[in-house]
């Protein structure tokens, strides 16, 4: 995959928005990769957690907003617990999700679930999924 980086992208308001919503300093990351090494979801991810931070530093907005990874993360907080720089990676991923959700771009389509599934799922699953994946 070819990725173009530019001053224009680095200065995109997207970077500041991610920092603001997550409350994290993206530039604190020194790419040790510990977050990705411990992440139980990496097998399903297209951009790994340490790469998400790098992409966010560089303002690679389109790549991040279109990535599968931001929806695969279940906020299990393993990355946060292990980051030697104290960055809350799960919060950064949440911030990227929020940027889409606040434009009403929902990830979960409740109407696509069968009645059988909806009946079977406990409320804790339905409500948490809606909280994370819908606006």
């Amino acid at each position: 995959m070819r990725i173009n980086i530019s001053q224009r992208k680095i200065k995109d308001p997207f970077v500041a928005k991610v920092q603001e919503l997550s409350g994290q300093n993206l530039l604190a990351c020194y790419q040790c990769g510990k977050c990705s090494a411990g992440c139980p979801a990496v097998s399903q991810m297209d951009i790994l957690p340490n790469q998400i931070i790098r992409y966010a530093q560089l303002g690679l907005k389109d790549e991040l907003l279109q990535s599968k990874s931001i929806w695969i993360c279940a906020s299990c907080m393993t990355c946060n617990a292990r980051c030697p720089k104290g960055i809350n990676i799960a919060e950064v991923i949440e911030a990227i999700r929020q940027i889409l959700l606040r434009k009403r771009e929902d990830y979960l389509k409740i109407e696509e679930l069968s009645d059988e599934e909806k009946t079977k799922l406990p409320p804790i699953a339905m409500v948490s999924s809606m909280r994370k994946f819908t606006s």
Partner: protein
Amino acid sequence: MKICYYPGCTLKNNAKNFEESALCSLNSIGVEVEELPRWNCCGTVFSLATDDLIHHVAPIRNLIRVKESNTDRVMTLCAMCYNTLKRANERVKADSESLDKINQFMYREEIDYEGDVKILHFLELLRDEIKFENISKKVTKLLKNLKVANYYGCLLVRPKEIGLDDVENPTILENLMTALGADSIDFPYKTECCGAYQTVNNLEIIAERTYHILTSAQSQGAEIVTVSCPLCAFNLDHRQKETVQKYPEFKNIPILYFTQLLAIALGCPEESLRFDLNYIDPKPILKEKGLI
């Protein structure tokens, strides 16, 4: 001892086996439980976005209810409620401006919240106040020769400031099971995420996680896996159906709430164990061990 209890949504239906076994155990230990009046949703997940105050209203409103019950602490069973209530509480304690805004939003409440409620998990009550050695003395049926792997998942231990035990290697459940006479099995997946709410629209992930978590426990000789979260319970127990479809060599293993084993050890009647809500039937292994 009397304790205020916050149940949460799932404890009242799919996880009745969690609630009823815990309440029977508390009764056996001599703890009086009073359910929090007019409780509402805990918020389910703690809002991670810095500006998202509206989603802290639900947990904080519950803490107002606790104060209205003339107490300053509340016990949960569900790991998710524990985490969300405790994190929201810590958040407003550290940020008076947010607390003011949330209180203003709830202007029709009779009292303001002041950050002075303590959120306690049932396991903390057992470990720190009742103490495991005193529970041992109340055991009428030792869980002898039962090999139990204890699964913590995420919410009891992370983040570190909220967790009730070591963030990487918690042992509270193992210590409880040992106090009940069971053989506690250690396994490396005990704090690995089960996939949580991905169970709604991404079953592939859940089947993969369930497979890795449970086969890891089985490779260490586990006969039963305990859980403390209704969402973990659903994924590790009910989703074994999908796990077998994806991994035909997978062998089913019963998943029990730790309170179900506690209730057995304390001599609670079988009706309070509500095995009808467990997907993989635990009765054969429990009968084999002479426990039911």
